[in-house]
């Protein structure tokens, strides 16, 4: 076992890892269960986390690559009482069904909107193309995200 240190949801922590371990396993074994184990091959996006402002698939990211980085999971964004605006929009739009893909979808949207607060539709789809949802058919998810974008535009 080796020790790595990274910031998780704004808090600096040490993690004991096996060199062969993937980040999704390290996070889930340390209580960050919002990081979902989906396809395990970097396709579905359920395991998406943000590292240094960029989304990655944690199921194909070796944990040692997170050493000294800034990692965000869904646990770091909002609560039941005070949801993040992206979470609020998804709920209001009825865009959540089984919910398994939603942590990844929220994080992908957050990473994009932190970088480009008013993306056009093509950019929005480009940045969300790595997250699969097998329940909703995406329409309500995009509507919810477009509403967040519209709100951002009003605030400018």
């Amino acid at each position, binding site marked *: 076992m080796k020790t790595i240190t990274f910031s998780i949801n704004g808090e600096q922590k040490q993690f004991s890892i096996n*060199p062969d371990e993937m980040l999704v396993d390290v996070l889930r074994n340390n209580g960050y269960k919002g990081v979902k184990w989906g396809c395990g091959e*970097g396709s579905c996006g359920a395991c998406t986390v943000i590292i240094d402002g960029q989304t990655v698939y944690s199921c*194909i990211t070796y944990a040692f690559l997170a050493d000294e980085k800034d990692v965000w999971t869904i646990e770091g964004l909002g609560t039941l009482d005070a949801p993040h605006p992206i979470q609020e929009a998804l709920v209001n739009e009825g865009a959540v069904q089984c919910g398994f893909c939603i942590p990844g979808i929220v994080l*992908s949207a957050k990473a994009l909107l932190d970088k480009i607060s008013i993306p056009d539709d093509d950019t929005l789809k480009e940045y969300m*193309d*790595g997250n699969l949802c097998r329940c909703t058919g995406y329409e309500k998810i995009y509507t919810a995200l477009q509403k967040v974008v519209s709100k951002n535009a009003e605030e400018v």
Partner: protein
Amino acid sequence: MKIIDFTKPASIEETCSLLNQLDSKAVITAGGTSFQFKTGNAVKTAVDINALNLAGIEVREDSFCIGALTKIAELQNFTNNGWVLGKVAKKLSTQQIRNMCTLGGCVAQVFPWSDFPVVLLALDAEINTVNSKKSKAYRAHDFFKQQPAKILNSKTLVTDICISKVLDSSGFGYHKEVRTSGGFSTLTVAAYIKIDNNKIADIKLAAGGALGLPIRLTAIENELKGQRASSSLFNDIVPPHAQKIKWQAKEGASDEYIAHLAKTIIIDVLNEALKESASEAK
């Protein structure tokens, strides 16, 4: 492959020394996305090169020099006069993969679905490498003649990749045929054309995906060079040559289907490059 240890050198010198010391037990790691395709039970120490100063795009007078650690997402978002890799980057897999993958990783190992080797062949890129003994530059057509691992072995690093700007009377065309959005390439074609007095002064055409390794389509290039550029010329020249290439069947696509697809896509890509060569905006 099993990773039993990892190390993160701070300089190229330290990296080369570690690679020498670990020899075949080393595996160079940057984005790490290709690891999921490494089968077998080899036991390796990961040499994480992310601390090396090899990321970023340097804009030179007539060219761009791209550090090997530059992420595909950076290529996707970069804009500059004569920059054509944005449209290639956008088509590579999904945003998460574009955030993880490095250009160096895309050239250090060629998979049957690799996009960038095809493009770098068409752009006649220069691939710069270093090991403990020397630095060496390769033209793309030499580098991709074999699996690059044969050149790089486990002791040589790709440091940067340089491409010319696509300016003035030149154009670039690109098409990646996929079965699903974000999927692996069934067929990838890229073309660079330079027009002088309405004639094709220079042309580089490359294809990959349905081939073992990406190749330059030199027979088509040779026939087109010096001719007056037009769609009808492409329609005449491409089909007989495209038919002769040994395309490989892929999942969901027979070799016969790919041969037909290739003919159409090559013509489309040449037309796109020709159209772009006449346009001010690249």
